[in-house]
């Protein structure tokens, strides 16, 4: 593969100060680059990042990678052109197209084997303080690189439009776009992304989108991404509550706390943006989700941290263990018996045996059993006529006392009726009197009560309420 660098027009992003649109080559002696193709070893691999199709084809050929793709399929992918399901104006593509010239600066810098050198060179220039450099000065600034290599890399960066060459004053300078790209690349020159900083970085990206004029949609997408991160955090936290080790759960809860704080900062920082898009139902829904998630998730994470701390302290004191009350409660709330059964599934194997049977013994026993006669109850006696007997008269003190009451001819104090013979007799007669009046009050002579008390003082009776029995007048 030949590089087209020497004779091709300057890339669209490159600038010249003479207005021709073509960037002159530079060399180490006067700012002019040597003409002609670059050394073969550098150019061959540096022209383009291998495409996905190329990678797949390579994997298919070598058997490397997960998917093994045949040559025809790889070729089909090479010519594959994505097809839209919606009108293009309804997709992010027009915005991307408008920014493509700028965005192309990123692959121009980061692709190929020499990407690391180009990024490092740009970072050095960015930090050198001077805004423009003659080639010799530039080689001095990038002191860590061999001068000829610096010249080659500068040529490539100039062709990509990252460096601008003033052919009148013979100096190079970073284009404004290149300064931004370099700054972003510098900021992202990290070993790996700290997951705790995701939302903070998304906030920065939203700020960048708003400041750079990338449009509300770009900010909206960053916002949506931050909310999606919180949702993922919530799912992960709940999963770890159920199945995670305590250290993993604690780590997740702390991460969630970070994210919640950062999300709150994001919401506070972009309050104007939020107000401006309050009439967008999609954004409104997203904002509501965020406003709901932040307190809920923050509280959840704090509770999880508190729970883990308290339980760790309990264990330190030797107090945290499962007791019978816990098991009772656990069993009571276990609605799915399958989950409970899972504790012993595959472990609780039943015994392998069946009772051994002796055939001869079984038949003998059958004979014994079949010869048995079911026991019968003894016969009943023959029926006999029954003699009717008059029941003996039953002593009824109430009836007897009632008879005495009916026989009274003149008003008589209850004392005279009740108090007879002995204390026992007096009590019995009193009970009979009360019982008689309870049952036959209307038939019996009238009973008049008074507030006074009689004091018979005989047969053991000292005091008794004064009442008088008045026989009824005979009817005419």
């Amino acid at each position, binding site marked *: 593969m030949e590089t087209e660098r020497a004779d091709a027009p300057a890339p669209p992003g490159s600038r010249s100060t003479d207005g021709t649109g073509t960037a002159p080559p530079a060399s180490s002696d006067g700012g002019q680059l040597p003409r002609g193709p670059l050394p073969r070893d550098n150019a061959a691999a540096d022209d383009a990042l291998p495409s996905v199709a190329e990678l797949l084809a390579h994997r298919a050929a070598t058997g490397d990678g997960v998917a093994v793709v045949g040559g025809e399929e790889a070729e089909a992918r090479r010519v594959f052109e994505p097809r839209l399901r919606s009108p293009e104006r309804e997709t992010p593509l027009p915005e991307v197209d408008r920014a493509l010239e700028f965005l192309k600066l990123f692959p121009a810098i980061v692709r190929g084997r020499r990407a690391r050198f180009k990024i490092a060179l740009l970072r050095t220039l960015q930090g050198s303080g001077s805004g423009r450099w003659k080639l010799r000065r530039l080689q001095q600034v990038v002191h860590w690189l061999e001068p000829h290599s610096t010249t080659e890399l500068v040529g490539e960066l100039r062709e990509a439009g990252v460096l601008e060459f003033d052919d009148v004053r013979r100096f190079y300078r970073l284009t404004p776009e290149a300064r931004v790209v370099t700054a972003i690349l510098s900021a992202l020159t990290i070993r790996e992304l700290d997951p705790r900083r995701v939302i903070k970085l998304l906030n920065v990206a939203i700020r960048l989108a708003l400041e750079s004029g990338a449009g509300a949609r770009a900010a909206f997408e960053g916002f949506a991404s931050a909310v999606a991160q919180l949702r993922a955090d919530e799912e992960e936290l709940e999963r770890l*509550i159920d199945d995670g080790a305590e250290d993993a759960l604690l780590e997740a809860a702390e991460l969630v706390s970070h994210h919640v704080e950062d999300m709150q900062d994001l919401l506070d920082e972009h309050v104007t943006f939020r107000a401006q898009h309050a009439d967008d139902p999609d954004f409104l829904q997203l904002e509501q989700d965020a406003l709901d998630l932040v307190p809920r998730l923050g509280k959840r994470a704090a509770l999880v941290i508190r*729970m883990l701390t308290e339980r760790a302290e309990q264990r330190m004191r*030797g107090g945290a263990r499962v007791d019978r009350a816990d098991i009772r409660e656990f069993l009571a709330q276990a609605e799915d018996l399958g989950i*409970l*059964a899972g504790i012993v599934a595959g472990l*609780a*194997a039943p015994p*392998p045996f069946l009772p051994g049977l002796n055939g001869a013994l079984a038949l003998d026993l059958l004979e014994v059993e079949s010869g048995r006669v079911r026991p019968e109850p003894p016969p009943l006696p023959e029926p006999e006529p029954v003699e009717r007997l008059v029941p003996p008269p039953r002593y009824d003190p109430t009836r007897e006392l009632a008879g005495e009451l009916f026989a009274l001819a003149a008003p008589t104090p209850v004392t005279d009726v009740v108090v007879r013979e002995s204390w026992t007799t007096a009590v019995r007669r009193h009970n009979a009197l009360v019982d008689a009046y309870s049952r036959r009050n209307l038939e019996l002579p009238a009973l008049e009560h008074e507030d006074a008390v009689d004091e018979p003082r005989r047969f053991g009776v000292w005091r008794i309420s004064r009442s008088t029995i008045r026989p009824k007048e005979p009817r005419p």
Partner: protein
Amino acid sequence: VRPAEKAAALLVRGPLERDAWPEFADEAFVAEVRHRLGEVGAELASSGRCFVARARELPDEAGFEPLFRLNTVELAMVAALYLYLRYEPRQRATNGIEVDDNPSVDVEDIVRAFPSRSRDYLQKVLTRLKRMGFVRRDHDRLFAGPYLAALDDIAADARADQLLERFLRRRYLRRLEAEEAGNDAPV
């Protein structure tokens, strides 16, 4: 010395008391018993006081319907018995708390754990588990039978740990939430 063949033949009919079979102290004897049981899809297990043979888990085979297979309710009840009679006592012992040598649980504790099932049905399940040697019953108390005692406690404890830890965490969080809700409530 009695032959391993006899021990294996007896084991597939019922448990062997450890004290009555000193031959099991001999590793070669035990290996022979294991081999013979393995030939018929069973395995030797120890339940402390006795040795038992239990059916090894086998893949389903066309045209084969096992006579003994624990259904979900039976397994769940074995799990409940395991938690009370094996898991919880071991937890106590781990924490240095005195443990009953022969832990038991009230029948009511087991029956109440399955409120969706009738008492009659649960009593039948208990009877079936008793016949299979998973549980012993003395009036209203249930004790671990040889087959419950012979259960692989490492694997079962790990599963129980996971489920109970989940339950305890959720319960703890609910309590904290309720506590905080109480604190937040207007006075």
